[in-house]
């Protein structure tokens, strides 16, 4: 953060978000989404441990930057191309907790895949979230293609795509940034760097300290922000979004985030991460840091915090019930939608 905002911080704590153009309601709602994503995440893991779900992959620690980056986006108009840790981003974009839990339970009305994909493979045509696959990195060229179409069709849409730092080693990642750089596409290329690709640490993934420096290789700005500083994440995302809207091209954004949980429910991070490190990253939990900011700003009283927690619990309980009561896919539908069906409206 620049000298100006540091000064502002010293003078008046509460005006830091206002200086970025965010209202009190904005930041409280951002907090709500971060807390909602965390609570939903916790619920998914509990359900998995209880045998109600086969598998969980999620993003504890990533919520702050995801909510912040999604905040400037036009939720109806703009596109989002997610990855498996995009729980909070999908919620802000317009998926409901029930939508995500329907995927966890692999139910027929799971909007992501109708129970066809493993949990965590989000997608929703209604809110312009493109379907996700499992091979890492393939989504990056898709985002460039979507953004190219937006430019050619003059729709004014902006596309945001997300990936972890491990995914930046893929050729597709490079090819997408190169293409988007050449055509100055309205795209936000997000890298959520939690320093681990499953168990492989950052130092074995890349020879540079920050993904952001690679932006220069594609003729686009590369910026890096601390994922536990939610307002800073918002600031860089907003700048990139405005840049895209102005037609000035894409931005590569690295969010340095703590990975608070294991890679997935099939992983035990204690086996390859030292205890002290796990202690340390917990201090960077965006739920805590942003909560603390809001408390300092006088916006998040204990009563308010409880109120939000109660609301979230109600919503997630309800979503769990709805998802749990939903029917499983009919096995006779297994052969459908290999191709568009004759007579059906073209998707």
């Amino acid at each position, binding site marked *: 953060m620049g000298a100006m905002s540091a000064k502002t911080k010293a003078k008046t704590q509460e005006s830091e978000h206002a200086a970025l153009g965010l209202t009190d309601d904005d930041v409280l709602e951002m907090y709500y989404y971060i807390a909602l994503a965390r609570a939903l995440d916790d619920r998914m893991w509990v359900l998995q441990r209880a045998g109600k779900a086969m598998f969980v992959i999620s993003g504890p620690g990533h919520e702050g930057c995801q909510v912040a980056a999604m905040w400037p986006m036009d939720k109806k108009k703009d596109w989002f191309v997610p990855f498996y840790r995009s729980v909070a981003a999908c919620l802000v974009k317009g998926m409901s907790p029930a939508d995500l839990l329907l995927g966890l339970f692999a139910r027929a009305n799971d909007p992501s895949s109708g129970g066809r994909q493993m949990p965590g493979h989000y*997608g929703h045509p209604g809110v312009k979230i493109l379907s996700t696959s499992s091979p890492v990195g393939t989504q990056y060229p*898709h985002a460039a*293609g979507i953004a190219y*179409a937006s430019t050619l069709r003059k729709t004014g849409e902006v596309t945001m795509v997300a990936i972890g730092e491990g995914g930046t080693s893929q*050729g597709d990642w490079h090819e997408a940034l190169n293409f988007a750089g050449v055509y100055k596409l309205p795209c936000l290329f997000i890298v959520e760097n939690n320093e681990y690709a499953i168990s492989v640490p950052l130092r074995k993934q890349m020879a540079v300290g920050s993904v952001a420096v690679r932006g220069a290789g594609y003729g686009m700005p590369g910026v890096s922000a601390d994922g536990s500083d939610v307002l800073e994440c918002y600031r860089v995302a907003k700048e990139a979004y405005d840049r895209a809207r102005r037609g000035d091209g894409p931005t590569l954004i690295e969010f340095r985030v703590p990975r608070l949980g294991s890679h997935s429910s099939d992983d035990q991070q204690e086996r390859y991460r030292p205890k002290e490190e796990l202690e340390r990253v917990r201090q960077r939990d965006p739920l805590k840091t942003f909560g603390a900011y809001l408390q300092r700003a006088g916006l998040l009283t204990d009563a308010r915090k409880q109120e939000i927690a109660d609301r979230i619990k109600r919503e997630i309980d309800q979503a769990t019930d709805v998802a749990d009561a939903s029917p499983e896919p009919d096995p006779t539908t297994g052969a459908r939608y290999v*191709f568009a069906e004759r007579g059906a409206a073209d998707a």
Partner: protein
Amino acid sequence: MPEVRYIDAINQAHHLAMEHDDSVIVMGEDVGAKGGVFGATMGLLEKFGEWRVIDTPLAESSIAGVAIGMSVNGLRPIAEFQFADFIHPAFNQIVSEAARMRYRSNNAFGCPVVFRAPYGGSHGTALYHSQSIEAFYAHVPGLKVVAPSTPYDAKGMLLAAVQDPDPVLFLEHKRMYRLVRGEVPGGEYTVPIGPAVVRREGTDLSVFAYGWMLHETLQAAETASKEGINAEVVDLRTLAPLDKDTILKSVAKTNRALIVYEDNRFLGYGAEVAALIAEEAFESLDAPVLRLGGPDVPGVPFAKKLEEWFSISQEKILAAIRKLAAY
């Protein structure tokens, strides 16, 4: 009807598709100012401009991946791979993404992309400009694979592919570009993706082929007829989804089957056709189903004599026809 070369038919289809529909774009290496290394996209840049005729960076995976993204956001891309041999870096995008998008999203998203790829052995094009790739892709549900053999079909099937709501791998045997001519209407028309067609009626045996092999097979069948062997020749045209009915109907009539394909033999496209006939037409067979494919070596070698050794010639097809007829 004017007679045109295969490549001209492909070029005409591009022009018509782009004139007819603003959402159709063309992308690939050298498709712009050069008009494609074979001339398939000649004249498009001048007419439709740089944003609809995209000279892409030299990166095949993103040619496919970017096309997929375009297709979910309202465009109808025709993506050219300069040679089928260079499509392999895009395998993941085509197979994991384009082919699976509709199924995995439960019909929420589809990928109407045409992937064009010039394939097959030509004169002196060796291991990396001669490959036949159809077996890799025809194996994948969710992807349509076509290999038209005439200018008429090439134009009509390319126009059909552009209108198709699903991804189509469009294979053009390079040998045909300038060698094969045929009558082609000037305007728009489509030839449906799916149905095979009987190119030569016969009674003694059925030969199944596609692409350039169809032409070699027709010549061989002509020679065989002079020897009293009356071969039926079926042009498969669409390799996936396969027109089983036309194949089975032909075998029911002739009781003998030969599949000719230029790819190396082992697990090549002919294996599936042979298996289909063995399973579903066993009782009509008077002879074992034969496959004539290329040798199982890693590619077409360069030196002329080696290339001839590899290639499926009329003589080799004729020998296989004689063998099958004599069984």
